[in-house]
């Protein structure tokens, strides 16, 4: 029962969502809109699960003085500070409302944004080290990878204008033709994979995600 009922629910809702697509009538649209709104609300509620796990793991580190426990304390401090600022509704230390709280906004602008942007910018370094390490003519496949990358890179470097118009045409052709073909093959494959897996989920064949008792 603990396992059969969930599987039945998956089946019912899955089939409903499939058939909903073919029924333009208002009533089916109405249910569909509700289903979408609910998913967001549930998602937010479950964030509590995540926060709980984060607090537990961090606190566990601090309590047992595991390696790097001091940093777990930093996480907890950041978390509680931000939650305090974010839920500061009625007491209004600095401003009137949660998300517009002065400290909340400044933590966002001067802690979250800089770190986030810097993490993202690490890509500039990693893309270089990955090119250095991996773009080597080890095999036929690796050489194709290397050649295609070089053609495109030459095309977009203004210093290397001398490689001329043919390189430009070749690069554009590569992006327009083989690129399109391969992407299409992957997209069709992925699309089929998703359709087949969804079907397996709805039919209860793929059921690993429910665990077992």
């Amino acid at each position: 029962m603990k396992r059969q009922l969930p599987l039945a629910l998956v089946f019912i809702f899955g089939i409903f969502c499939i058939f909903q697509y073919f029924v333009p009538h208002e009533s089916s649209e109405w249910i569909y809109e509700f289903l979408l709104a609910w998913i967001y609300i549930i998602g937010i509620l479950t964030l509590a699960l995540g926060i709980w796990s984060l607090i537990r793991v961090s606190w566990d580190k601090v309590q047992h003085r595991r390696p790097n426990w001091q940093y777990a304390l930093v996480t907890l401090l950041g978390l509680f500070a931000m939650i305090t600022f974010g839920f500061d509704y009625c007491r209004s230390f600095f401003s009137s409302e949660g998300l517009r709280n002065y400290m909340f906004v400044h933590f966002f602008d001067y802690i979250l944004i800089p770190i986030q942007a810097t993490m993202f910018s690490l890509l500039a370094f990693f893309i270089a080290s990955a090119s250095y390490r991996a773009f080597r003519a080890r095999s036929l496949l690796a050489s194709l990878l290397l050649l295609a990358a070089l053609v495109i890179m030459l095309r977009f470097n203004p210093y290397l204008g001398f490689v001329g118009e043919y390189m430009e045409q070749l690069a554009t052709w590569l992006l327009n033709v083989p690129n399109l073909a391969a992407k299409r093959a992957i997209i069709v494959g992925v699309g089929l994979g998703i359709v087949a897996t969804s079907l397996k989920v709805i039919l209860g064949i793929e059921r690993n995600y429910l665990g077992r008792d």
Partner: protein
Amino acid sequence: MKLKTLIVLSCMLLGGSVFSAAQEVTDATALTDTAAVAAPRPIADLFARDSENDHGHSLTLSWTISPDDGAGQMNVIGYELYRALSPDGEFELRGKFPFGAASYIDVGAKEKESSQYSPDHTDFYYKVRALTSDPEVFTDSEIFGPVQSYGQWFNTGRIPVLVFVIGFLTTTVILIRRARGGADLFVRRLPGIEAVDEAIGRATEMGKPILYVLGLGTAADIATIASYTILGRVAKKVAEYQTGLIVPCYDPVTMTVAQETVKTAYADAGRPDAYSEDMVYFVTQSQFAYVAAVNGTMLRERPATNIYMGKFFAESLILAETGAFAGSIQISGTDEIAQIPFFVVACDYTLIGEELYAASAYLGREPLLLGSLKAQDYAKAAVILLAIIGFLTMNFGLEGFKELFYISN
């Protein structure tokens, strides 16, 4: 008069919906052209019906343009559509369009509170007014009605999708039954998956843990669901070999499911006591904070193997390069097309797109899963066949074949 014709024609050539511009221009010329504008002849054959394949609240109208639109007296500059609840009731303006227009879809809102609300199952009467440059001079058409709008229960424009759904479902079910009946279904090698076992062995020898990253997908993303199966398999092996496992999560629900999966795998391996909730933990739901934390874990715990399966975005290369930095063996798989190149370049093994979905069947080797994998292959064969037919028919100008696949909104 000639000037106006010229302007109207050039407006047509420009092709933009220059209704207002045309009106302004013609107004200006009307000042110089003192002769009164003659009344145009009305439009003919006004017809209205419920719009097809929708949720109602919408009517489709068509008519034959006035003989004086672009021909004859050339004095029609546009039309207005009016609607009323009875033939002699008060007519309300529903739409304006430039000359040459011969159809219109009158869409109303479905919300009762909206000012644009248009009720279903209510009789409406329509008329179309042909306008001239002189706001006083116009001609109304005959009134058409009554006509009602209503919602449909089946969208015929989506039949191609239904055909595919039914076709795919039947194929899958038939093949699954055949597989159950004992037919031997072959699956080709997937080097990325075969490497998993080897990598776990290596981790055991080195006494180092395995890092499994489920990506940024939600629990219901199909890539994540495929990833659970692989995680289950990895966790079972890890439990058997008594190696460590680290699963940092981005999504709280994904974490819940992953905990369940790992717990089950440990129980299956006969070592339920070795499972601890802390193996699978939540980090944060912010893309780069998650990456920062996983990167730190890679350099501090030095896992022997990093496995990335699921949905990945810009972080793919940051993760894979840091992993390479730490000297781990890396196996990846994603259906996110823009990220596959980065994984291919930076990881030792990569499951490309659909291979990620095939992996669960390959690992499970259950007839049920193999049967559906076979159905996927049949569908691909069908695609190839259709592409060949399309390739040929397009050349003979049989555009109709392509139209069979047309899906309306």
